């Protein structure tokens, strides 16, 4: 009797191998979450920094690295108000240095967003579907590209996704209010970073309002909204206090006045950038990725999309996000969402739609392990092939762009594939349709943007590793300028253009006269300054110039120009940045003006 009882107990106890296997099974999806950002960078062959082809991204780097200097010298613009962008850049650079800080911040943001998405998806799906969702997000070129620069999107996009994830994650009796506060804080962080992010509020709020009404929980919904608003206030107060730590005491209105003025004049500012709808629809194939995912969500989930379950609500949000962006595009006079970086926010759609789609296919008796594998594999292969394709890939995209019927055929077949994944009788056919669907969506999403684009797949920078050296140089330059540049004794950048490596000049806001060279005029060599360049060189407060050029001869050319203007140049420092590719010379300007 005693013997048999012992034997039974031994058979119930897990063996060492079982414990290990169980631990691996528990840990493996989390390892995927931790490695997903790296997988995205490798498979999309993404440069870690993508700043040189763009201007606006440098404003935030500059403010992050020299906030006190920039506010004193330049004052408050709408981009100064974006404290949820500027403060993380500042803190990361101070803690780890510019490049390491940038990389650690990106990894932390992407991993945290992935972890929250994983936990949100786990509320309705198995661990591997949740892990695959995080991997698919990392493989989404919209998402990865918007993370890999200092422009506002590196905060708005992860905060939008994380905010929505936390909203659903917190929808449990124990965490309803705390979850809503955290969700409100994250979404507010996105909105403070860029007001356009507020599009998430109707996209998340409308389906949730309907869900609350259907389940007769409207008072609870209102309470959660109030809690979310509290989270928004907490972030604002924290941002104000942090700015005070940098700047000393200042009126709280400074934190939002410029943004409100900017929003009031938004339509006027946007007017010159307006594009006809037909042109947008015909020549930007990249915009069709999110609508295709929405179509697949509707077709595959069918009636289940209208339920009140967490999965249905998550899928409703995914569809609503792209719908709201398209509604905004057609209903408002704004050029903003037409730009690839603003439209890229629709990565939120794929982030939440794909797990719902994969889970639904599992319910429809498709082996979920195969479905997950095939979705990830198809996306990864297309990402890698297209990004490795270089000029050949852009030629194919150009062909599609200029042949609307080809584009129409691709979109139609993609819709048919979504329907195939939903309705084909044989599971193998469904899997094949799913693979082809994922491949086409990945391919379309990588299309170079025609409007303010760089003709690069996924809009990744063509400068590769140089970007990192340029970013480091921009930091050194900003620190050098911030040390000596004061309102009463200006140190202005003087370069022979604001493109290529000299694009780093944008950290010192050349459009706000932080540089001698005006971005509104054609580039001029330092030996032949334009009248406006001369005006700034002779301005009563100009005391020094930082001459910057990829051509060393340009530096020498600046000195005779200064003498011709009646000033005595005094070279205080010379050197190179970007591995010797960018020359600089700090020149004092003496003499009466």
């Amino acid at each position: 009797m005693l013997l048999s009882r012992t034997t039974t107990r031994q058979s119930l106890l897990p063996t060492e191998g079982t414990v290990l296997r169980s631990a691996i099974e528990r840990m493996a999806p989390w390892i995927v979450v931790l490695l997903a950002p790296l997988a995205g960078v490798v498979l999309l062959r993404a440069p870690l920094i993508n700043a040189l082809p763009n201007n606006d991204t440098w404003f935030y780097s500059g403010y992050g690295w020299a906030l006190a200097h920039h506010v004193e010298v330049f004052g408050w613009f709408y981009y100064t108000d974006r404290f949820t962008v500027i403060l993380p850049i500042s803190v990361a650079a101070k803690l780890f240095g510019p490049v390491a800080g940038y990389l650690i911040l990106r990894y932390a943001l992407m991993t945290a967003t992935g972890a929250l998405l994983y936990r949100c998806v786990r509320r309705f799906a198995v661990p591997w579907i949740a892990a695959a969702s995080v991997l698919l997000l990392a493989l989404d070129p919209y998402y990865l590209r918007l993370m890999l620069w200092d422009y506002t999107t590196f905060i708005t996009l992860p905060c939008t996704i994380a905010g929505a994830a936390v909203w659903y994650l917190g929808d449990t009796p124990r965490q309803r209010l705390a979850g809503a506060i955290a969700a409100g804080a994250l979404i507010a962080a996105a909105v403070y970073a860029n007001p356009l992010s507020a599009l998430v509020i109707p996209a998340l709020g409308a389906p949730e309002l309907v869900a609350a009404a259907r389940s007769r929980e409207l008072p609870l919904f209102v309470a959660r909204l109030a809690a979310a608003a509290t989270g928004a206030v907490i972030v604002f107060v924290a941002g104000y206090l942090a700015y005070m730590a940098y700047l000393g005491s200042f009126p709280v209105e400074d934190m939002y006045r410029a943004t409100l003025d900017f929003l009031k004049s938004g339509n006027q500012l946007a007017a010159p950038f307006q594009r006809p709808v037909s042109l947008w629809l015909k020549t930007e194939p990249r915009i069709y990725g999110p609508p295709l995912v929405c179509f697949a969500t509707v077709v595959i989930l069918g009636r289940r999309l209208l339920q009140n379950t967490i999965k249905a609500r998550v899928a409703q949000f995914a569809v609503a996000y792209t719908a709201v962006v398209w509604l905004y595009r057609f209903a408002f006079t704004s050029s903003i969402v037409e730009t690839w970086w603003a439209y890229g926010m629709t990565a939120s759609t794929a982030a939440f739609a794909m797990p719902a789609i994969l889970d639904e296919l599992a319910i429809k008796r498709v082996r979920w392990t195969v479905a997950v594998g095939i979705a990830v594999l198809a996306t990864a292969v297309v990402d890698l092939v297209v990004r490795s394709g270089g000029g050949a890939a852009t030629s194919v995209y150009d062909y599609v762009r200029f042949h609307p019927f080809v584009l129409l055929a691709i979109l139609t077949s993609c819709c048919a594939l979504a329907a195939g994944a939903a309705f084909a009788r044989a599971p193998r056919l469904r899997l094949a349709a799913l693979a082809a669907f994922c491949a086409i969506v990945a391919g379309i999403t990588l299309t170079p943007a025609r409007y303010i684009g760089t003709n690069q797949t996924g809009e990744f920078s063509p400068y590769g590793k140089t970007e990192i050296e340029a970013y480091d140089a921009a930091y050194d330059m900003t620190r050098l300028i911030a040390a000596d540049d004061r309102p009463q004794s200006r140190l202005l950048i003087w370069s022979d253009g604001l493109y290529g490596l000299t694009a780093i000049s944008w950290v010192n806001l050349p459009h706000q006269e932080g540089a001698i060279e005006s971005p509104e005029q054609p580039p001029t060599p330092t030996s032949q300054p334009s009248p406006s360049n001369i005006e700034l060189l002779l301005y009563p407060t100009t005391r020094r110039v930082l001459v910057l050029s990829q051509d060393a001869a340009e530096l020498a050319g600046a000195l005779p120009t200064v003498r011709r203007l009646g000033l005595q140049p005094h070279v205080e420092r010379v050197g190179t940045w970007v591995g010797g590719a960018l020359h600089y010379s700090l020149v004092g300007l003496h003499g009466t003006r």
Partner: protein
Amino acid sequence: MKRCCKIGAAAAIAGLAIGASGCGRTDGNRAAVLIVARAFLDAYASHDAATVCRVITPPLATSFAYAGGGSCERHVASTFAAREAPAALGPVTIDGGKARVAVPASPTRFVGLLHFGSIWRVTESWQLR
């Protein structure tokens, strides 16, 4: 969720502590306003039309150029009175992007400046017409 709140609070405190290292700057905008106002008044007193046109706001310079048949300097030169000693400047008041420098010798006179980009420029003065 509580842990998240704690992490958030810790991050905010760390941010404040790190940010505090940026304190201690004294605002140089008053000094800049005085330099530009001084340059403007000196240029007017010494009939230096080029410097006057350099330190006034671009819209004002454009309107003067229109009035001067394409030359701001020509119009400004036409407004010069007999040479007089440059006025002494008094206290500076700054309100956002606007500044005003008083002239103690004459309570009704002042020099008004605007922050254009990152540069203070003269937009208003008793000499400008």
